[in-house]
Structure formats: structure tokens, C-alpha cells
């Protein structure tokens, strides 16, 4: 029972992060049908920038929470610019190219970003200085920390903000219209290029925040961390139904929980043949199952859309 509660808590924390990253994939896919494989690297850069800001300010005597907030703000800004630049430089010139071309470009951009990060931050693991005084709370034999609470709380806040943006604002309306019919949206006066750029910028901002969460949760960062994180968040987006915002949120949460439960019980299930470090396989088992049985995902696009 303790294990169950503990793994559920861990799963929700992890899931909140996956959901934020998955939103970046799904927003871009929903609007231009591109899987932006460089998104995981944007998240990694977010972690790294936050790390640099926090480390350089840690000894300055500023209150730790302010340092953390600054790290978050700077990394969000940097990632927004990065997302914008990616779209402008790498994807926009390929807007009318065959689908495979931007996809390969995305993989290329991901490699470029990894190597840039390696040059700047080195190839070793970086330890994230803990900025929050960790407090541990007890819940029915399981425990959780204030870091976890902040992660889940902040993620929920971001998601509510995004839903509000998409459904209640002018730019959100333009985004939905562009996703459903870009040509007609432009006839209504929507500047498609701007909307697409916005999708990248917003997705990257969410990614940066997720990156800061990962950094402060695991207290460790590495230039290759974006690869696995990105792949899992992509799985979460597919699980929820790629292109669907609610799907990305639900898919992220679900994947986090599946992974945590899997990691918690895999030892018992296999008679300790496989240990919890095999937790990564669950995301991909989920991906394979979804692709086999319900490729449109849980909240997949409804069919029957008439042109």
C-alpha cells in the first residue's frame, strides 16, 4: 500500500512534467502537422540556462526563491527565443516541402542543439544546486516534498493558463482556426506565420518551465537529457491523441503514473530479474500498444470532419 501511494505521488509529479513537454509537441503538431523532435532539446537548454543563472547568482546573497524565479524567467525567455528561431530558420523555409523533410530537419536540429549544449556546458553531469529548503511530508506511509508540490501546482497553473489562452483569447482563436483550416483562417485575416511562430514560442516556454522542474526535482542535468525526456513526452502526446491539448495533459499524467507504478512493481513482478532502473521501458511499451490498438490516441481527433 505504501508503495502504491508513493509511486502514485511520484507518478503525478513526473506526469506533470511530461504533460508540459507534451503540450509543446502537440501544439506544433496540431497547427502544422510537424513532430518537432528538437523540442526535447529545447527543454534541456531550459534546464541548462536555469542552472547557469542559479549557480551564478547563488553566492550573491539574493534570497534563494528570487534566484530560482530569475532562473525560471531567464530560461523561459531564452527558450521562447530559441523556439521562435527554430521555426524561423529551420522549419518555415520547408513549410511546403514533403512531410519527411521538416521531420529530418527536426532531428538534425536536435543533434545541433545537443552539441551546442555540450560545448557550452560540457559533457559531464551537472549538479543542480538545491534552492528550496526541502521539506518532507508524510502521507499514509509514503512521503512527498514541497518540491513535488510546487511542480504539480505550477504545472496545473500553466495548463489552466494555456486552456484559457486557447479558448478565450484572440490569439487562441486564431490558433484553433489555423489548426482546423489554415487557408481559410488566413482569409479571415489571421496571419498564419505569426500563429505558427506563437505555437513554437508558447510550447518552448512550457518546455523551459518543465526543464526547470526536472532540474530541481532530480537535481541533475546533462546535455543528452532532452532526448529521453522528449521521447517520453512525445509518447504522452501520442497516448493522449497528438494535436489535442487535453490529450497531451491527460497522456502526460497517465504516462507518469504508469511509469512510476511500473518502476515500483517491476521487481516484484519479475522476481527481481528486472529492477526499477528499467522504468524507461514502460513508456515505450505504452507507445507500442497505443500505436497498435488506438493510433489516434485516447482523445484522438474525431473523424467525420467535413471539409
Amino acid at each position, binding site marked *: 500500500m505504501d508503495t502504491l501511494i508513493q509511486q502514485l505521488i511520484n507518478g503525478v509529479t513526473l506526469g506533470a512534467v511530461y504533460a508540459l513537454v507534451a503540450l509543446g509537441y502537440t501544439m506544433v503538431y496540431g497547427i502544422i502537422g510537424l513532430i518537432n523532435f528538437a523540442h526535447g532539446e529545447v527543454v534541456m537548454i531550459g534546464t541548462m540556462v536555469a542552472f547557469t543563472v542559479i549557480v551564478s547568482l547563488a553566492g550573491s546573497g539574493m534570497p534563494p526563491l528570487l534566484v530560482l524565479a530569475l532562473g525560471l524567467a531567464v530560461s523561459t525567455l531564452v527558450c521562447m527565443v530559441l523556439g521562435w528561431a527554430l521555426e524561423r530558420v529551420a522549419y518555415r523555409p520547408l513549410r511546403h516541402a514533403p512531410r519527411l523533410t521538416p521531420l529530418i530537419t527536426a532531428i538534425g536540429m536536435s543533434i545541433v542543439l545537443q552539441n551546442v549544449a555540450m560545448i557550452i556546458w560540457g559533457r559531464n553531469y551537472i549538479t543542480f544546486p538545491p534552492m528550496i529548503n526541502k521539506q518532507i511530508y508524510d502521507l499514509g506511509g509514503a512521503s512527498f516534498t514541497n518540491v513535488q508540490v510546487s511542480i504539480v501546482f505550477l504545472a496545473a497553473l500553466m495548463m489552466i493558463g494555456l486552456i484559457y489562452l486557447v479558448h478565450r483569447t484572440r490569439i487562441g482563436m486564431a490558433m484553433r482556426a489555423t489548426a482546423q483550416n489554415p*487557408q481559410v483562417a*488566413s482569409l479571415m485575416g489571421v496571419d498564419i506565420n505569426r500563429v505558427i511562430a506563437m505555437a513554437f514560442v508558447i510550447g518552448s516556454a512550457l518546455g523551459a518551465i518543465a526543464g526547470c522542474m526536472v532540474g530541481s526535482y532530480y537535481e541533475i542535468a546533462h546535455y543528452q537529457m532532452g532526448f529521453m525526456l522528449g521521447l517520453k513526452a512525445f509518447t504522452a502526446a501520442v497516448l493522449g491523441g497528438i494535436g489535442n491539448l487535453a490529450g497531451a495533459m491527460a497522456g502526460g499524467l497517465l504516462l507518469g503514473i504508469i511509469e512510476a507504478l511500473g518502476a515500483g512493481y517491476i521487481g516484484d513482478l519479475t522476481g527481481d530479474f528486472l529492477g526499477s532502473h528499467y522504468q524507461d521501458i514502460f513508456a515505450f511499451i505504452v507507445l507500442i500498444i497505443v500505436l497498435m490498438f488506438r493510433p489516434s490516441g485516447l482523445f484522438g481527433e474525431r473523424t467525420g470532419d467535413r471539409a
Partner: protein
Amino acid sequence: MLEVNGLRVSYGGIQAVRGISFHVDEGEMVALIGANGAGKSSTLRALARLVNPVGGNVRYRGKELLSLPAHQLVAEGIALVPEGRGIFPRMTTSENLRMGAFSRNDKQAVERDLEHVFSLFPRLAERAQQVAGTLSGGEQQMLAIGRALMSQPKLMLLDEPSMGLAPIMVQKIFEVIRTVASQGMTILLIEQNAKLALEVSQRGYVMESGTISLTEESAKLLADPKVRAAYLGE
């Protein structure tokens, strides 16, 4: 109001529109008729900046239209009702209509126009909160026209509004088109249903494999034996 000169449109080497010229004056409804593949839709898509013409120029109220990007046309007062309706399927009827007013900032006038569209198409008022993808074809066509009206256009481009609709729906749609025209709207209408188009319009152009073969007052075209034989199935 609209003056097209030597417009040419090609798709990968195939010429769909081979240098056509025509004009639409303020307040009139002009029909562009012709068989399937004659280049009518390509002409309209070029005017709406959805395809790039390879030649010619288009003057609209003294401005060169072809230098504007598609999303600026609506601010100039041009609204296209695209072929196949082009509604936003996962938005509600009223959200679709509000998208028509996307480039406007006068909130109160938008609400007034919304009521006006609902009075033109009472069916849309009944379906206001319904997701547009679940509307019938005729209702979607009403929505597309209503949405175009929401931008307060000066010139409306209608692309095959009768396509795929039941006869009774076609009648209803054309009644509204007539009403809108009688209120002073300038309309360029593209139709395969030549009889219908010539009945509602003042002037007509007949398109044939990318060129304009005939132009005349609509009533005269309707009476022309050649037109009757070729396009009215007589």
C-alpha cells in the same frame, strides 16, 4: 471596383487560367460560369491570394491586389466564401461567425452583425452552439456566407455556393444571396449551375478552358442559344 487584367494561373506547367480580363463594378453581381475545369475556381483563388498567379494584375479600388498577402484582404473589404465551404469543423457555429469578424475591433457592431446574420439565416441561430462539423451541408454553406458577411465586406467572392446541396437548400441560399445583393453588396459569383447564376446576376462571363469566351448581360446570355446548348442542357 475590381479590374482584372491578363490574369494567368499555372499549376506545375499546366495553365488553368490563360490571361483573362474582366471587371466588376460597385454594387453589381457578376457571374463567372463555365464547365468543370474551365478555370473559374483558379481565378477566384488567385484573387483571394490562395494561389500565386504567374501573370497579370488585379486592381481593386485603385490598389494593386496581388501585392497583398492573403490575410490583409479582409481588411480591404474582400471576403471569399470558399468552394466546399471551408468552415472550422471543431468550432461552434457562433465561433465560426466570430472568426469572420476576426480582423474587426468594433465589438458592439460585431454583435449587431451577428444578430443580422442570424436574422438572414434563422437556422444558424438555432444551431449557434452546435459544433459546425455536425451541421448539414446546406447549413455549412449558410455558415460560410454568414461568416463572410461578418467581416463587413465590400466585395464578396462566392465559389460554387450551390455545390453538393439539395435543390431546396440551393433555393434558400440563393434567396439570401439575392437579398444581400439587393442591399448593395458587390458580388462575384462562380457557379457551375449557370441557369441559377445568370438568373440572379446582372452580367455574366463564360469561361472555357482558361479563357473568357463570351461576356454579356446575364439576361442575354440566358437567351443565347449557344449558351443554352452548352451550359443549360438544352
